[in-house]
């Protein structure tokens, strides 16, 4: 892949302090969502870290007895105690494991829920910002593809806790290794009694447990560094590996024989994950060697422990039972301690990714949230005014709207026309306060709309956007936009939107799921049908302003004409704003706003605008009307 990935400064390690802060924040966040989860993890981890030592201790006693007095009575007792206690501990372990497993499996969802929540609560202008959804996409790719997730902190927590608890357990079983003395009869080996050996052993333990993970951490860092190309690799693979599965484009894929294009990507062994890709090459070289080095250090350490323990035993400091106890304890301990250090190193590598998560979760809503209530007594007498409104999308230099002035009274029909990209949809977004103007103000009944309670303000608009979306739930729920709905009202709205005939054909009626996602009896609606459902949804909401952005694009001429002819009935006494490329629709409207390059260039009725033969409206109209003129 000749892809050039932008090399971001992702490789910068955060400081230990920063790592600690990020991890703690993550733990707090999980605690906030599910306090029990952390408790269960804590208990289970401590429990499972301690129990193996019980078995080590008791098995050693059996060996001890066997190599000593060999009292059958006492042996039987010991065996029963060992087995009985093992069974009891496993039983309690099995009981707690249940909850632990449930929580552990749920973590994946929990993390997704945290992000979903954030998105639901974010201002639209932020959600719509490509930078922000790229931020989210990147985050999720790191999380899913490379394991750089928020929930990994819980795993760190478990490992660190388990390591510390094992240290205590291990030390209590091996402390006597240093205190029991080689008898004087052993000659030169009495040197093993020297306190220097204690220092030496502990020093070695620390050195090895510190060194061994260093290599793993280095290997881990390679993965972190590669994460960027890793993500791109994943995305390309997700696209080209499954293009043939997209049934809606299957015709196109065949006509242009795109399988060849896919094969080129899918069989490129130099792709990030493949046998000649970046990671594989690293694994063959440095990374592979890091793992080997790490293992070698661990093995050498165990070897030294064997040497020390066995020489002492050989010299007569303790019996065979203790030898098994020390060896088992220290091998267990060294494993635990080195994973403890490993995890610390990994946590530091990981902190950068935690920070990315928090950078996302910390994005603040910036829209002013007023608390003024809409005056309900005015009985839907609303008047909206744009005063010299200009607007730039965040991060853009160009104005999408310039100096827009207009007034809209309740009960009016307004058409908005203009070429693609002239600012029509942006105008609607400002009106519904999905964005706030960069300059100028929008007034509702004379008051700046930012001073109203946001949700109440939104409640006066009902919109079919050009790129509207329906959910996969039932038809009725989609129209009502909630779980329980008024059936007659839904039916009424569907009829008005011209969906009545189709509704009668559906065996499950309003209970029909849209798409087959949730039910095999679900129905995939055509583009035109979806448009009608979306229209019905706006009617159900019964808001004083109805806004329709290209509501008939997917409809055939007859269906289109039908909607036009019902327009008055549909709109009733509401205010309607209508965007369309089909200029014929303008004729129903009291006023027309003509947009060109972000500005309102003309304003007036169809007839008055047609007078100006050099105007934009005239140009647009004739571009279309010429083909319909009677010859």
């Amino acid at each position: 892949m000749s892809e050039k990935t932008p090399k971001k400064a992702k490789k910068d390690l955060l400081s230990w302090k920063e790592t600690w802060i990020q991890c703690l924040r993550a733990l707090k966040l999980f605690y906030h969502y599910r306090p029990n989860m952390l408790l269960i993890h804590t208990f289970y981890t401590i429990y499972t870290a301690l129990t193996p030592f019980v078995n080590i201790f008791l098995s050693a006693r059996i060996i001890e007895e066997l190599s000593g007095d060999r009292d059958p009575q006492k042996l039987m007792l010991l065996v029963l105690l060992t087995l009985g206690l093992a069974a009891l501990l496993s039983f309690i372990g099995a009981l707690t494991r249940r909850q632990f497993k449930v929580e552990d499996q749920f973590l994946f969802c929990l993390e997704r829920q945290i992000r979903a929540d954030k998105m639901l609560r974010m201002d639209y202008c932020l959600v719509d910002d490509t930078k922000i959804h790229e931020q989210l996409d990147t985050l999720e790719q790191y999380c899913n593809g490379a394991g750089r997730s928020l929930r990994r902190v819980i795993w760190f927590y478990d490992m660190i806790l388990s390591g510390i608890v094992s240290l205590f357990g291990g030390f209590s079983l091996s402390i006597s290794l240093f205190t029991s003395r080689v008898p004087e009869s052993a000659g030169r080996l009495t040197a093993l009694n020297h306190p220097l050996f204690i220092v030496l052993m502990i020093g070695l333990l620390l050195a090895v447990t510190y060194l061994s993970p260093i290599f793993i951490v280095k290997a881990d860092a390679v993965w972190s560094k590669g994460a960027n190309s890793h993500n791109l690799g994943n995305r390309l693979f997700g696209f080209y590996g499954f293009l043939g599965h997209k049934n809606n484009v299957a015709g196109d894929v065949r006509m242009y024989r795109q399988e060849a294009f896919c094969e080129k990507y899918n069989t490129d062994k130099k792709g990030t994950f493949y046998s000649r890709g970046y990671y594989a090459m690293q694994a063959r070289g440095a990374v592979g060697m890091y793992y080997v080095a790490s293992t070698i250090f661990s093995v050498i350490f165990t070897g030294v422990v064997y040497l020390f323990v066995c020489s002492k035993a050989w010299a007569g400091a303790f019996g065979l039972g203790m030898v098994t106890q020390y060896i088992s304890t220290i091998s267990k301990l060294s494993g635990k301690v080195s994973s403890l250090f490993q995890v610390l190193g990994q946590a530091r590598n990981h902190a950068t990714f935690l920070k990315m998560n928090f950078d996302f979760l910390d994005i603040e809503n910036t829209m002013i949230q007023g608390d003024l209530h809409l005056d309900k007594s005015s009985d839907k007498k609303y008047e909206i005014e744009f005063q010299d409104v200009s607007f730039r999308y965040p991060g853009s230099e160009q104005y999408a709207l310039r100096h827009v002035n207009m007034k809209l009274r309740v009960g009016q029909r307004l058409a908005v026309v203009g070429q693609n990209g002239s600012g029509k949809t942006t105008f609607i977004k400002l009106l519904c306060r999905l964005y706030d103007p960069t300059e100028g103000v929008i007034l509702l009944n004379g008051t700046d709309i930012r001073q109203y309670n946001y949700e109440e303000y939104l409640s006066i608009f009902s919109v079919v956007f050009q790129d509207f979306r329906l959910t996969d739930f039932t038809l009725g729920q989609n129209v009502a936009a909630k779980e329980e709905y008024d059936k007659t009202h839904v039916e009424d709205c569907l009829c008005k939107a011209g969906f009545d005939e189709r509704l009668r054909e559906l065996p499950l009626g309003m209970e029909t799921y849209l798409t087959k996602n949730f039910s095999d009896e679900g129905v995939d609606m055509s583009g035109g049908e979806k448009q009608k459902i979306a229209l019905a949804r706006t009617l159900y909401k019964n808001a004083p302003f109805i806004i329709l952005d290209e509501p008939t694009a997917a409809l055939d001429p007859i269906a289109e004409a039908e909607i036009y002819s019902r327009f008055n009935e549909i709109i009733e006494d509401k205010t309607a704003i209508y965007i369309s490329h089909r200029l014929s629709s303008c004729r129903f409207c009291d006023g027309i706003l003509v947009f060109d390059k972000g500005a309102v260039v003309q304003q007036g009725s169809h007839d008055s605008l047609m007078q100006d033969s050099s105007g934009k409206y005239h140009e647009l109209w004739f571009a279309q009307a010429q083909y319909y003129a009677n010859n």
Partner: protein
Amino acid sequence: MRKETSKATAKKKEKPPKPKFNMWQNAWWMLKLSWAEKEKKVPILCILSAALAISGNLTNLFITPVILGTVEIHAPLRTLLLTILGFVGLNLLINGVSSYINANEMYGKITLRSAIINRLNTKACITSYPNLNKKDFQELLDKACDATRGNDRASEAIWYTMQRVLQNAAGFVIYLFLMSALPPILIVVVLITSLLNYFISKPLNNYSYKHKEELSKILNQLGYLLNTAKDHTMAKDIRLFGLRPWFQELQDKAIKAYLAYLMREQNVLIWSGIADLVLAFLRNGVAYAYLIGLVLNNGISISMFLLYFSAVGSFNGWVSGILNSLLTMHRQSVDISIIREVLEYSEPFRIKDGEPLRAEPEHPYEIRLDHVSFRYPEAEKDTLTDIDLTLHPGEKLAIVGLNGAGKTTLVKLLCGLLDPTQGRVLLDGRDIREYNRRDYYKLFSAVFQDFSLLAATIAANVAQSEEDIDMERVRECVAKASLTEKIESLPEGYETKLNREIHLDAVMLSGGETQRLMLARALYKNGPVVVLDEPTAALDPIAESDLYQKYSEMTTHRSSVYISHRLASTRFCDRIILISDGRIAEEGTHETLLQKGAAYAELFEVQSRYYREEEPANV
């Protein structure tokens, strides 16, 4: 083969159809795959890993008892130290090599999984179009796809399973030999407890397998809600229709259901844990009793005691390892079998053989629909009935009709995406079924309503290739589609990447611009027949008018088929056919059809009435 599968689906979900290939056939198939894809290292590393795992196990089995034995008999210190060093050396070798292999073995397996994905994708891209509408094909394809979704799915995980089968079987044999010194009673006890454990646990562990559908239903809904909440294209509707409380209510419900499911599953699985501990109690009890007896009565050494005691534990591990890995392999093999069924799914079209066809741009092709009827599978009536239509060389044909009249189906028949249920489609008088179907597709420069934009550069999207792009021609075609100004305004021009979900530095083209890009692509392909399905839906009036002006220039020397709701466009065509109720209802030029004053004239009237200067009719 087809009959078998349809019979199986008829039996409904109660019993999944028996896989077409058995476990050993599938293992063989995977091996052959590794050879074909030049990834022989995968099976080799599997064998090596298994051998190393067994050696590691044996070293660990012997290390403590042997060293203990040396201490026990108080052998010379030198011997003790050498023994320890010997073991350490052995461990260094085994563990060192294992870690190196561990770090490396994954990539070959991923490569093989992606080779499977590639084969599935290619099959899905070229399989006869009607297969895509077959429920059983879709189900197989979905399942096959699911079996390739991650490292833990059958198409990759089966390598680990095969390794485990090998490792456990070899371990079992070696231990059987080792333990032959012991009385068979001990071996029998271990065998019995492991078998018991397996048969108790199997149905319990099966819980998750049996309730897979229940779980996937819950996760499907939860996943949908979580994804929808994050979906920025949904954000406007969520806010304006106040969907958040509803979504959160559903989310809470789904989470509750998920947690309840997980708890139910664990409540079943706990019995497997309990059986395990009871059997361990019994097995270890017998082993202790017997081995202690040996120490007390027969005078075997402590080190031998330790050796045998650990051997009993390991032996148990091998036996249950064999049973469990075979069970896993059986399950994964079912998935591999499904993958193979997809790859070998029968083709009603000739996609691999058939008469080759060269699409020559200048050749005057004539395509004729000879009394063609078409009915979708399981539909009650024909979508198209007895269509007799000839697309003459160089002719510009327009197809109009209401939504659902059958226009798109007609085009699909013409392009060879569907075969008629009755009648024939003839190319220069010869049934297209005789030709290689993928060659036949070369004839068409098509712009369909749904197009497949590639995550690649603009130039590559026009040329449909990343190599040997004729840039001169790309520019020419882009100019014809009126997109030059836009593309040249982009900093990277023709090298600009498309699809922002894949390439972060990509550019988003508007709907209208994309439609024009698809037009440029069709022109670049230079097929002798141009097919345009609603190419102006996303265009503003001026852009639409511009396209009409250029239409005849774009289609010189070629035949073309134009489908549209907008009757304005049909004026540029030599002939118009109006489809209604699956038949050709009217046929002629714009003028003759208007004069006729029937359906076409009515449609035109409806659409044009508001454009005329006189007052609109009653609204």
